[in-house]
């Protein structure tokens, strides 16, 4: 249950954010209708028989169109790299993946997206650098690594408050003396993960070790926002989601992660603003909107 495994899941969640359909949601208007009086004016007679009302106009996904009116969305859509990602065959394949769509519709996932700490962590340059790291990408494709992620014991460890406290401890020298850490060590689930052959295989993986040594990666680990996300029960629920795990294992998904245009988009502040848009999140939640 290394930090790297946690980050792997975190990065994957972030990758799921790239979608092509947006919508905008506003709270309903509060309208106070009070027509004024007009004395002394004789109203001209005009025959009127309304033919078409709101219910007669059936549109397809008007909320998507409404979101397209957002200035930040329009700026993002004009981004050349963003458009290239949208047309990337791997990306298109991922978007049409039923597991991916299921994850998008997951309320926990949406909650994670809406989390300000998540958004802040997402904007972290160190995080983006890690995403671009070839070793990291190789690790994502590692079936053993994926298997570890799917391990319920591993997920249980992630959810352990003591474990999270250990992660938050910037002083590695005192980790061994940290009572929380000792508590984790004694945790049966943790021990089960340690004994897991797949986990051991991952530990021995040179790519994994390279990622561990990456300063940007360590910077992300130390990021308080990131740590907050880790502690988020919704996030943990997403990690445990079998559909999510299936997406992680998808070669097309991995291809997208490795795409330099995709990485550039992730770094784009406008795009990050879009991610924070409640309307956009609402569209993500709409199962009827096909990307």
């Amino acid at each position: 249950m290394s930090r790297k495994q946690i980050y792997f899941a975190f990065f994957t969640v972030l990758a799921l954010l790239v979608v092509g359909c947006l919508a905008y949601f506003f709270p309903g208007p509060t309208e106070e209708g009070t027509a004024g009086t007009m004395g002394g004016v004789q109203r001209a007679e005009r025959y009127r028989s309304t033919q078409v009302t709101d219910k007669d106009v059936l549109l397809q996904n008007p909320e998507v169109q409404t979101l397209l009116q957002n200035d930040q969305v329009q700026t993002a859509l004009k981004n050349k790299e963003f458009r290239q990602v949208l047309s990337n065959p791997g990306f298109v394949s991922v978007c049409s993946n039923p597991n991916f769509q299921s994850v998008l519709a997951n309320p926990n996932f949406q909650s994670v997206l809406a989390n300000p700490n998540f958004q802040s962590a997402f904007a972290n340059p160190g995080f983006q650098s890690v995403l671009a790291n070839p070793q990291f990408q190789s690790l994502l494709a590692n079936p053993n690594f994926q298997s570890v992620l799917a391990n319920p014991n591993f997920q249980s460890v992630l959810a352990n408050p003591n474990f999270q406290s250990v992660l938050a401890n910037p002083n590695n020298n005192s980790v061994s003396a940290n009572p929380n850490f000792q508590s984790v060590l004694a945790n049966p689930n943790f021990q089960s993960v340690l004994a897991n052959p797949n986990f051991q295989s991952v530990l021995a993986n040179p790519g994994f070790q390279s990622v561990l040594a990456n300063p940007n990666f360590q910077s992300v680990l130390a990021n308080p926002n990131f740590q907050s996300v880790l502690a988020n029960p919704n996030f943990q629920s997403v990690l445990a989601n079998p559909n999510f795990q299936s997406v992680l294992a998808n070669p097309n998904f991995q291809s997208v992660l490795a795409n330099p245009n995709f990485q550039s988009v992730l770094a784009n502040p406008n795009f990050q603003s879009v991610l924070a848009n409640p309307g956009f999140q609402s569209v993500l939640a709409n199962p009827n909107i096909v990307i």
Partner: protein
Amino acid sequence: MRIAKWALLFLFCVTPLQAQFYLRESDNLRLLYFGQAQSYLVDHVARTFENALKLYRDQFQYEPDGKMSVLVYDIKDYLNGAAGSIPKNNITTAVAPQRFVFETLPATERINYIMNHELAHIVTMDQAAGRDHLFRKIFMGKVMPTESNPISFGYAFLTSPRAMAPGWYLEGIAVFMETWRTGGSGRLFGGYDEMMFRTRIAENKALLDRLGLDAVGGKTDFRGMAIPYFYGTRFFGYLGLKYGPESLLQWVKRTSGSKAYFVSQFQKVFGLPIDAAWKDWGRWEKEFQQDNLKKIRENPTTDFRPITSQSIGGLSRAYFDSSTRELYLGVNYPGQVAHLAAMDIASGQLRKIADVKGPSLHNVTSLAYDPGTRTLFYTADNNDWRDLRSVGVDGKKSTTLIKDARVGDLVVHPVDGALWGVRHDNGFATLVRIPRPYRHWNQILTWPYGTSGFDLSMSPDGKSLALVLNRLSGQQSLAVMDVEALRQGQEKIKVISDFDDSTPSAFTFSPDGAYLYGSSYYSGVANIYRHHLASGKTEPVTNTETGMFCPIWIGAGSLLAFRYTDTGLIPVLLSDQPVDKINSIRFLGQSIVERHPSVKEWGSGSPTAKAGEPAFLHASRYRWIKDFKFDYGYPTLEGYKNTAAPGINFHLSDSLMLNRLDTTLSYSPAGQLLSRERIHWKSEFNHWEWKLKGAYNYSDFYDLFGPRKTSRKGLYVGGEYQKYLIFDEPNRYLDYTFYADYYRGLDKLPEYQNIDAGFDKMLSFGARLDYRFFRRSLGSVEDEKGYRVRLSFGSQMVDRNLYPRLTAHLDYGFQLPIPHSSVWIRNSVGKSYGKRQYPFANFYFGGFGNNWVDHLDEKRYRDYLRFPGREIDDVAGNHFDRFQLEWSLPPILLHGAGSPLFFLNWIKPSLFATALCVDFTDSAFRRSLLNTGGQVDFHTMAVSHYQFTFSAGLARAYEKGAPPTNGWMVSMRIQ
């Protein structure tokens, strides 16, 4: 609203759009839309179309000859549509919200309205009976008239006689149908329409007769080309009232036993000549409006004092600067291009501030004013995607702030100076805020489809935003929104006054913020109203006979407003105190529905209830090649050298007409020609930016006349690629063209009919760059100011030797203080890099260049190769400089000299002087010439549709050491 050539041109020019058209088909419909952007709307468009088509089928017994093409696009900021039936039935419609200014368009669901309006055009123009069917069989389709082959005009009438009817007729029936299809929302209940005719009668002016309408119509009128709409609507309304709505259908329907010519059919249905009925209508209209005027005058009418007697035509929102006592506004009147102006309200004098490019017809531009910085903000390209611009009130610092901002209804926030406006994009209206320095807009609120806000006004404290809200059903309300709540993403709105079915217009806050002043047709007449925000009371402030608009509170007890007259709006001063009573007037539409309640059954109803779900094929990318079909073929006559060559012409195209193939084959049976010169072929294929041409012994109809000949012996294949770098409608363009042409077997040079080729094969290739920006005012007959820069580089290859040549041209024109009069300066230079003794290494000048019968521009003397006073190709030079000064005199407009079948519109004289110097670097060959001359053009119309310009020109040329020579020209141009 005819074929949307402007829409097709835009689509043609902005590539690579052709790869992004999508298509959905049903049994009746071929629905094309651009990209996935409009996909949300296509089902609704389709249902509305199917619903409307069914109604027209039943009511008109109309059966289309195949699927109809409907193109949906978003290239305009306001709703617009067009319909054409030749050679294929097609409708194009923008998706943007309507422009409700002055209540000139119906407030109703836009797609239902536009479909019913445009389908009326299709039915009217396309429906065939009797001999129409016969000729459509003979010519295998509906022939499109084209000036390059005027024989087609006759065939066009034989295959589609009703499509050749005048605009007022086509628009009249379309507006009549739109009114009842939309349940009374159409222009037969339009306040502006009533006002226009009421005003004309109040000013004791006769209505235009049919001839005057066709001859001059919108040329001299500030309402421009909307005039045929108004007259057609009114005439049809009158006929419907007097003879019954069914009589109109009998007139318009082209069914068995009906007459092809609409005038003949009128006589048959109504039993009297159309001009007699037109006069009857004039008499009736006078009585009807006098009754309305009488009702208005039962209560005291409002006194006013005009600030100036000069009408300012169309009008934008105006702003009063109390410190300078100046009024800032946009104006558009015949004789001057539309512009922003400052008016001294004491003297009424206008001072021009800046031109407005692409003004809208009625309200010129969207204007806002920041008194703190003394800056005006306004929109350009108001009929396309609007640009946001600013200029100081002194006319300096004119800047484009945001290109294609698509924002209008501008107001300035009095505290932070941000602009607020309404943006139209892909059918939606969005309230936006544009903070300083005004380079980016931010979304504040996007209304649901069908709802839009307009006519914004900011309270003096910046806390409230007043606007008019239009709902999908057409209901319009005056409302106030909380600005701070809006910035927090909340829509706190209070409807403060509901004017029922009339549009509340241009309501603005008084300086103390206590009142909103604006106008409404609530009583049927546009009067000024004020709304007291605290008490919620709305009161009338004027009782006027014509109309009052855009009130501005300027001081204690005083309002400045704009009074409607037949020549445009005039600023007036009046009291701001309420009046006691206003009587309503009667709408023509109301008279019709009361006398003929059957029109209530003409409503379209819900498209979802009646049409059901059309059976659609799935959406697919539009592939033009699958849609490329034969349109028509007809016999023709061509000219080849001095022979006549009978032949055939045929035409193929796709639904969008962006891919077209035109081919002519002919044969010269007589004349002194070799056998291999008797057969003639020419083809032209247009595919988006590409044009491919080929010919064998090229022939041309106009070579039957003279003196210019374009027919050439030999084989020719060539092509060109033209791409727009700037396509800034309506009048600013930059494009480049690459071309390559191969000739074989020539006897004369391709460009110069009198110069022997001296070779067998030639390859010519090159490139051209062309930038032009021309402007014209209302009532003009041609461009009146602007400039054009053209560069071309080319080379000819003969016997494997290259002979490059360069030319450069600069045209510049400016308006004189005389309306519709301009001075133009045209300068051209060129050099050919080849030895003088080779004929293709020279330029050849001479002649007016017009044929006796022609189809090209009648003012050929402007062309750089023309030099009136000398014969065609008479003056040769290896390099040259040509300078021309032209005075374009004002046209003499004639209110109908002739009959509706054939009449004279206007006469346009011009004077010119040209200096030409060839081979000026070589004293042995240098020649300097000067000419002076003039030309008069007489513009006529036949059958309300075809234009003929008769031109006569005289010139005298001078050259040192040679006697002067004279040249003359007479020509008839067919358009």
